[in-house]
């Protein structure tokens, strides 16, 4: 008997930990923007680029949900990992108030991760606004594995210059960085997807694309890549009450092998999906 697609995927294969992570530092990165460094050795040891953690800094009823945060970097030797946050809500204000040495209840690492396409020579990372952190983590792990002739190209976009995240760190890795802003305040004036279109114009066959940002941007990225035949992985955003695969709130529509559609979970089968799998409404 053939089971429906969902029946084959609802068990959680990853090793994950529910634990109180210790706040090591809130490192300011820009106005209202911080890197939160947490000490949690099991999570730091297993985190893969593209994965996320669920954080709960409070035991309040409002805000109620935990929040998912992409992992920005992880140092297994020191047992620490970090996430990037902007102070812009009641939740992030509570997060920002956590003193050094206090704990944040944490579940992770969770979800799928970016998988390097080993046949590609150009690894193109498309970062929209706060989509940059998981791509930075990916670039930092990918860079040491590159063979001669392989390169990483970062295409970073945001509405304004001050909303671009982590440019210096991408450059410090030795990656080439190209920038687009909607208002032209830095780099190309226009969308980061215009840059991608341009980059893939020459020769899409040696490129692999990895993207994280607003879903509208990802839809365009996926479309461009599918049209040009470049393999593409996108990390999707979705409201995520549980992060554990149980509530089915973070539904993402995918094509099934039998030609139908079904909803997968951004928190378990995602957040990183292969572009050809997704069905955009």
């Amino acid at each position, binding site marked *: *008997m053939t*089971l*429906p697609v*969902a*029946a084959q995927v*609802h*068990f*959680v294969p990853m*090793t*994950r930990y*529910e634990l109180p992570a210790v706040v090591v530092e809130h490192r300011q990165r820009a106005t209202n923007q911080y890197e939160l460094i947490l000490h949690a050795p099991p999570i730091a040891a297993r985190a893969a680029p593209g994965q996320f953690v669920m954080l*709960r800094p409070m035991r309040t*009823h*409002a*805000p*109620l*949900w*935990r929040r998912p945060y992409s992992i920005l970097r992880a140092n297994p030797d020191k047992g620490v990992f970090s996430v990037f946050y902007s102070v812009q809500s009641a939740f992030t204000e509570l997060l920002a108030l956590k003193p050094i040495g206090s704990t944040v*209840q944490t*579940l992770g690492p969770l979800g799928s991760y970016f998988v390097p396409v080993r046949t590609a020579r150009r690894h193109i990372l498309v970062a929209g606004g706060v989509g940059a952190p998981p791509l930075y983590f990916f670039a930092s792990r990918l860079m040491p594995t590159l063979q001669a002739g392989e390169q990483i190209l970062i295409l970073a976009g945001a509405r304004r210059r001050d909303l671009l995240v982590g440019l210096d760190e991408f450059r410090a890795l030795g990656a080439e960085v190209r920038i687009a802003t909607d208002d032209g305040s830095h780099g190309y004036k226009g969308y980061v997807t215009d840059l991608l279109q341009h980059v893939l114009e020459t020769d899409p066959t040696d490129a692999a694309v990895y993207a994280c940002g607003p879903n509208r941007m990802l839809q365009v990225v996926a479309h461009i890549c599918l049209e040009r035949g470049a393999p593409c992985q996108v990390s999707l955003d*979705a*409201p995520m*009450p*549980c992060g*554990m*695969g*149980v*509530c*089915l*709130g*973070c*539904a*993402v*529509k995918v094509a099934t092998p039998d030609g139908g*559609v*079904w*909803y997968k979970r951004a928190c378990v089968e995602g957040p990183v999906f292969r572009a050809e799998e997704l069905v955009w*409404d």
Partner: protein
Amino acid sequence: MGLTPDMQAALGRLTLRNPIMVAAGTFGYGVEYRDLVDLSELGAVVTRSLTLTPRMGNPPPRVAETPAGMLNAIGLQNDGVDAFIIETLPRLREAGATVIASVAGETLEEYVQVAAKLSRAEGVAALELNLSCPNQARGGMEFGVQPELTAQVVAAVRQATDLPLIAKLSPNGGEIAPAAQAAVAAGAEAICLINTLLGVAVDAHRRQFRLASKVGGLSGPAVKPIAQYHLWRVRQSLPDTPLIGVGGVSSAEDAIEFILLGAHAVQIGTANYVQPTIALEIVQGLRDYLTTHGFPSVDAIRGLVQ
């Protein structure tokens, strides 16, 4: 002193090791939590609602956070009862869980067929009829707010299974007592209340509903006083029927409140999302409460608040 209190909960023919269950839909199929929670320590695991054939569910966004609560309009996404019996039930049994299967349907006949399949499977302790899901175009809640329909579904399922039957009812039709009485008269052995409350949420910036299906079901701490009201009211009209209280339980104290109002058992729902180990903490908290105050059993505190 130092005696361990009797934690058992008797709901008609169904006896649980303790009165703390996890609510339908909020614990997946149960197996998703195996690495975080010892399922054999829970009173019971109530599964995601199962339908005759796989259901894709509603389009996203399906969830929205609200003050001390959340709206959901998942739409009963599930792999169907056959996949549950083949794939999931053996794993739940292996994990030592007491399994209560939640049964949903669009028609009376669908409830009957799902219930019949589950009662032929090994390892289902009881059935909970979801007569209260607000996120279905057909069936679901309409069976639970009209007492004559409630009676028809329960009676039909009663014919199809020997398993203990729980009717889960909705607060969206006003007072629950009439439907509860109808369910009991038709053969339900316990009543579970409440399912979620109808609600909407609006995004002021995008000027649109926050759920794709507009209307969803409200759950979480915000609904606890409403759930407790209904539990207390139904307890008055059905003094001898086992009742399962659910709605906004986030701590041992919350669970104890429901038991004081007359609940035989309590389900944990939305709180599972926020703190996956909460149900086990509530089991321990209830045990500690009984010990601290010198009560010999859960039964000893049930209904103390009249």
